[in-house]
């Protein structure tokens, strides 16, 4: 509003986007909390399948997929096969949701006063755990394969422009730009703050942390891939031993290839009839997933194979919880600070009440994610609520500050704050590079969304190719909601601009009438 009243919609839009994001982000925290609470037992509950009613075998769904997937999809989410089938509220998730909102409320109860203390723990603890995982991961067998896989560029993949688009959006969201969080936190700084140094520090620390985390994660993934590869080989060896009645343990993993080749030449028809799996390490390395799949399935399984599994699980999910909590601080800050500044509540109301009300409203709205189809809805929110809007808001912010407020005025302000004017690099990027990049990403994103009909992957035990997930298109009403999510916050920009325009025009008319009025009276007296 200080820059231009017509751009006040950007702030309002940021508020709406932050609200939507905090809804679904805290649900992810709920899942992490559920896993954390379940990690305090040995053996871990996702290590073994439950038994079926006869107690002669395992539950069929678990048998077909894996114990870890079963625990995630069935015992945690209790997921339905279709998004239109909502199912019932899962009480264990609801309880964990209440707990995570309670923890968040405890940390933001007095705004920056309590958040500032909580952040010491939630920001430093993940680094400690990452270091522990890094050291443990590098000592595990198979870690080197994972790291080699991480750092060897695949030229085929790099040629796909979609990959670059994903990378750009990833760094954009990783820095949490245009959420309003940075602005909210920065407003607590003294006016003469070296913001240039802060900006560079944020970018550098973010990238370094991502690199550090990926090294830790990929060494563990390499271990898991090597483990799976070994088990695949063992399965084949067992089949060979059974088929050819060889003594037990006569074929080791290293001999396997040679023995297989020999058998193929001597008795090809038998070898073919055995249906051996092809075991290639690269296949297992490429199977690593992203997002919720990475944390709850791939990593949970990797942790199972480490000695002392419950301890590692507690550390890992504790780290995820504190990471998510610190992100949520930023989100809640960008929701609560605008509400405070707008003066939504009367003056006498204490701050604790406002934060409590905000958390309560968010908690009640987020219960829809604890339904059985909640995970599908979360994916929708994740894909559509934030992405387009944030790019648009960032674009408006850059354009608004540089072109509407004026580059000269802005540089003067920064010179007053930091003591020197911003250099040529900053001026060029602000004026040309950033708006252009943002516009390109925006157009590319929209064209990508428009070209492919939106679909989702459902977990359907009745599917023929179970455990592969079934690809289903979204029904019409869900697509309407996606469009609404994508554009409603962005609409606040023109809406507020229009309201401001109308208000100004009305004020101008009133001023004109007041000037004209007395003159008429004078005229009338005569």
């Amino acid at each position, binding site marked *: 509003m200080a820059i231009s009243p017509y751009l006040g919609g950007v702030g309002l839009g940021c508020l709406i986007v932050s609200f939507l994001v905090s809804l679904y982000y805290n649900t992810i925290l709920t899942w992490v909390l559920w896993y954390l609470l379940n990690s305090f037992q040995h053996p871990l509950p996702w290590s073994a399948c439950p038994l079926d009613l006869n107690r002669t075998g395992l539950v069929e769904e678990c048998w077909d997929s894996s114990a870890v997937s079963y625990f995630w999809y069935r015992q945690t989410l209790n997921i339905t096969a279709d998004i239109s089938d909502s199912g019932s509220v899962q009480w264990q998730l609801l309880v964990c949701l209440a707990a995570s909102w*309670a923890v968040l409320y405890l940390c933001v109860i007095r705004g920056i006063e309590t958040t500032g203390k909580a952040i010491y723990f939630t920001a430093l603890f993940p680094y400690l755990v990452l270091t522990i995982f890094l050291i443990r991961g590098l000592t595990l067998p198979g870690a080197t394969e994972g790291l080699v896989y991480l750092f060897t560029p695949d030229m085929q993949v790099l040629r796909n422009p979609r990959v670059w688009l994903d990378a750009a959006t990833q760094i954009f969201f990783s820095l949490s730009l245009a959420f309003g969080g940075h602005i909210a936190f920065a407003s607590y700084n003294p006016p003469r703050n070296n913001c240039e140094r802060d900006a560079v520090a944020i970018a550098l620390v973010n990238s370094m942390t991502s690199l550090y985390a990926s090294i830790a994660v990929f060494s563990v993934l390499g271990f898991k891939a090597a483990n799976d590869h070994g088990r695949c080989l*063992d399965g084949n060896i067992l089949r060979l031993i059974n088929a050819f009645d060889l003594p037990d343990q006569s074929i080791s993993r290293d001999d396997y290839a040679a023995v297989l080749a020999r058998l193929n030449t001597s008795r090809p028809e038998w070898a073919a009839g055995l249906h051996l799996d092809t075991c290639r390490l690269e296949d297992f390395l490429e199977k690593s997933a992203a997002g919720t799949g990475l944390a709850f399935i791939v990593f949970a399984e990797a942790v199972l194979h480490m000695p002392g599994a419950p301890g590692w699980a507690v550390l890992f999910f504790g780290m995820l919880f504190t990471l998510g909590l610190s992100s949520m601080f930023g989100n809640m800050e960008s929701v609560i600070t605008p509400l405070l500044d707008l003066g939504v509540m009367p003056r006498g109301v204490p701050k604790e009440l406002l934060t409590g009300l905000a958390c309560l409203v968010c908690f009640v709205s987020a219960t829809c994610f604890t339904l059985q189809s909640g995970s599908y809805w979360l994916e929708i929110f994740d894909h559509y609520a934030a992405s387009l809007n944030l790019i648009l808001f960032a674009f408006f912010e850059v354009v608004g500050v540089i072109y509407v407020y004026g580059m000269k005025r802005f540089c003067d302000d920064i010179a007053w704050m930091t003591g020197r004017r911003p250099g040529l690099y900053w001026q060029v990027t602000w004026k040309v590079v950033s708006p252009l990049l943002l516009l390109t990403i925006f157009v590319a994103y929209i064209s990508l969304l428009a070209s492919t009909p939106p679909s989702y992957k459902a977990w359907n035990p009745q599917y023929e190719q179970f455990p592969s997930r079934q690809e289903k298109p979204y029904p019409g009403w869900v697509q309407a909601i996606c469009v609404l999510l994508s554009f409603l916050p962005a609409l606040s920009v023109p809406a507020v601009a229009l309201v401001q325009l109308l208000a100004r025009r009305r004020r101008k008319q009133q001023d004109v009438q007041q000037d004209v009025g007395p003159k008429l009276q004078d005229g009338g007296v005569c």
Partner: protein
Amino acid sequence: MLASCMEFTVTHQILWRSSVPIGARKKTRAHVIAPGKSPCSDSAATMRQNNSITQETQEGPRLRKYAWDTNEEYLFKAMVAFSMRKVPNRETTEISHVLLCNVTQRVSFWFVVTDPSKTHTLPAVEIQSAIRMNRNRINNAFFLNDQTLEFLRIPSTLAPPTDPPVPIWIIIFGVIFCIVIVATMLLILSGIQQHRRKNEGPSEMEDTEDKCENTITVENGIPCDPLDMKGGHINDAFMTEDERLTPL
């Protein structure tokens, strides 16, 4: 005894192998064990038809994990006989009634149990259920378990996962939630106390001002006397930093 093996037309056999049958999805390693195979049936539809029926003297293969010799065989026959004796009608089963056949190098064989008159073999179903009942004792006799000592066609009763009466996650959840609620209450209460102290503070200042009888000179909108009375503790002429920034 071999001759009697061959004589019996084996209609029921129990196959006991040291490996998981082909096509099973279990990936357990088979470490030895010597499964039993019934004497030789021509109708055995396995891939072991190459094994000769004539029994060589058993020298169990010296495997790394398990040593199998004739004594172990004797123990095995004794355990099977013991299992059969527990069945109501079969208390007179003797060790000599249990016959092994087709023993292979990796310790895998067939076995049958004959009835006391040695004229026919007992139905496989009966033997299977008898062994199922005493599976644990048979395993323990050899210091093996269900995976390493496997009877084909006898599915093992799996042990249910330990289920504590109260799920552990609820206990931990209760602890965390209680701590959070207590901390929140403390913070809210301290906030209310601070609020009340702030409200009482200004009213105290107003009382002392009323008691003062000196004329209060006003300069720049700020009464001079309060500056003196507070003894320099609070300087109202100076606007603090906090008021210019967003309040905490």
